[in-house]
């Protein structure tokens, strides 16, 4: 066990060091522009440079200032503005996003672009991610329906959801908070407070979680380990209660079940070695009585 922990800790430490040094890739163009110098030291307003932002009604609008705007101040040092020719508009941002609407509703630039004032370089555009937009909308009772920001016909289904076995693998993404493009996680789209529990802990009367007839076919699923039953049914009392209430009598417990030849354990030994979970579904509660007679305590 100590070896296992040592390997784990070494691995984690190595990873922390390497990634802390690397610090991720820089943004395309990477202009060394200091917002801090302009906003804090020179006391410029955001709209002094980004003058078109006030009337912008679409996310694809190019809100970077023209080089001539910079030249108004930097006319004697044109080399300082040369990098601006390499700036590209942020064209992938939400088509429907309107700066005009947000500013008109009383928001300021800093409501969304909080950290930019202190930014020494502009390799990150300080644009809020979708989670942050949705948190703000949520707090102000503004709808977070997809259509509020996205265009009809936009394919919003993440690639991960396309895989044929996503019904099984989605738990891995949720368990470890895997983030996808744009820093999105499950809650970015599945905003309902009990979205997970609607399936994982519901009464299942609308058959969303388990299809009709699952009562009789679930053993096939459980035995092939197709689903991890214990993800939701964390207590085996769930299995025991249902098996007892419905008087489930396993039809493989027939003559010779425990001993085909004296002492060989019969089929029940093989079943227990293959799939102890199946035994526990009924016998965990009174195991000392049921099993203890032969196996001892």
């Amino acid at each position, binding site marked *: 066990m100590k070896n296992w922990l040592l390997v*784990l800790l070494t*691995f*984690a430490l190595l*990873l*922390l060091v*390497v*990634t802390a040094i*690397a610090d*991720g*890739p820089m943004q395309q163009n990477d202009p060394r522009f200091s917002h801090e110098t302009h906003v804090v030291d020179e006391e410029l307003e955001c709209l002094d440079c980004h003058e078109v932002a006030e009337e912008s009604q679409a996310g694809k609008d190019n809100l970077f200032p023209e080089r001539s705007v910079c030249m108004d101040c930097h006319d004697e040092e044109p080399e300082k503005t040369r990098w601006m020719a390499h700036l590209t508009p942020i064209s992938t941002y939400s088509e429907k996003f309107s700066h005009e609407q947000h500013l008109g509703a009383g928001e300021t630039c800093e409501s969304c672009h909080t950290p930019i004032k202190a930014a020494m370089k502009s390799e990150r555009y300080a644009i809020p991610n979708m989670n942050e937009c949705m*948190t*703000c909308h*949520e*707090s*102000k*009772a503004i709808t977070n329906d997809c259509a509020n920001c996205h265009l009809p016909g936009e394919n919003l289904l993440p*690639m991960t959801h*396309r*895989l*044929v*076995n996503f019904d*099984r*693998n989605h738990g*891995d993404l*949720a*368990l*470890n*908070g*895997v*983030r996808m493009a744009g820093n999105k996680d499950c809650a970015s789209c599945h905003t309902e*407070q*009990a979205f997970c529990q609607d399936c*994982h*802990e519901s009464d299942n*009367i*609308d058959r969303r979680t388990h*299809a*009709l*007839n699952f*009562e*009789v*076919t679930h*053993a*096939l699923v459980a*035995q*092939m*380990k197709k689903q991890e039953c214990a993800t939701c049914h*964390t*207590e085996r009392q769930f299995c025991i209660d249902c098996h007892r209430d419905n008087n489930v009598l396993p*039809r*493989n417990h027939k003559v010779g079940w425990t001993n085909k030849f004296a002492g060989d354990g019969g089929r029940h030994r*093989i079943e*227990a*070695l*293959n*799939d*102890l979970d199946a035994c*526990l579904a009924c016998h965990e509660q009174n195991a000392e009585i049921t*099993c203890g007679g032969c196996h*001892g305590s």
Partner: protein
Amino acid sequence: MYGQFHIRGQLHSTLYAFDTPQVEQANFYQGLQFRINNEKAPSSYFNTAFRVAKQGDSDWDDRIYNFYGNYGNTFDRFQVRVGRQFIYQGVVNGTLDGLGIKFRLVPKLTIRGFAGLEAPFTRDFRIVESDSNAFGAHLSYRAGKAVNLDISYFQRRRNEATVWNIVGTALNGNPWSDFHYYVDVRHNLESEQLQGLRFRLDYYFGAFGFSGEFNRQRPRIQQDSYFRIFQISEFSQFRGGVNYTLGQMQFGAQYLFTDFYIEQGNQLIVNAATEWGYLGLVFQNGYGGENIGVFGDVRYELLSNLTVKLFSSYYNYERQTTDISEDATSFSAGFLYQPFQPLALQAEVQESINSTYDNDLRGLFRLIYSFRK
């Protein structure tokens, strides 16, 4: 000084009746979930989701899924959650009546801690009487798109003894945009055994998506279980899947091979799907039993506020050790109608036909009211 309070939630009332040769019964379920927050503190709120039910002649029973107060500062860098909460982080899994804390130390590093009493598995509104508590921690490090590391720990105690003591590490990422890997290792500290190992690769190539997975796992048997005296053997599983997208259609196939301690099982699932439904076939043989099945599900938007739902399945199966061939057929038909924005009506007739429980006819009628103020 104080901002406005906002409430958002959903109320659903369900009548569910069923008729079998043994029982005729009508159940009523009343559910409510909502969240209240103040606009000045968007990350602080009260959240709950619960339902009460009257099932046949039995007494009313309640299930409280969530019931917690949440405090969070701007952009949730620090968060405290008190009350009943559903936790699903690394190896920490379950519903606790207790405390959850999240702290984002730096943008890349988040630490979470949980402690409390385990909620009763029936989720009724009472604190578990026995000495059953649990605590856990989860550390996640987001190094970038290519490397995400998660380390988690979970301990459950009952009657002053540790019954579940597990540590897990998961590593995942997208080194390239079309490629995703996932590795998850879990170690049971109490039994000193590997509890689970999962390794998966997903690759997208144009219209194709490929997925391969290896899984090795032991049954989750707690330390106070009598079954600890037995040999707890692990199983290994290989899973391979491919899917292909053609316009609005998607075709998929998945093969599953499970190697148990002594025997093996195979399963193949193929399916075709559109935006409004899917059709699938399943073939299975080996230790898990013989099974041939077909299933189809349609959810077709007839009008912008009316969706028709149809489902049917047929399975012919035989458990390996019984040599008894059985059939199971099911059918359901219903609709979801939204006469105006906050209100939706759902109705469905469900029928199960199988040789074990005979025919079983069920009816569901649900009214859903969404509110936001």
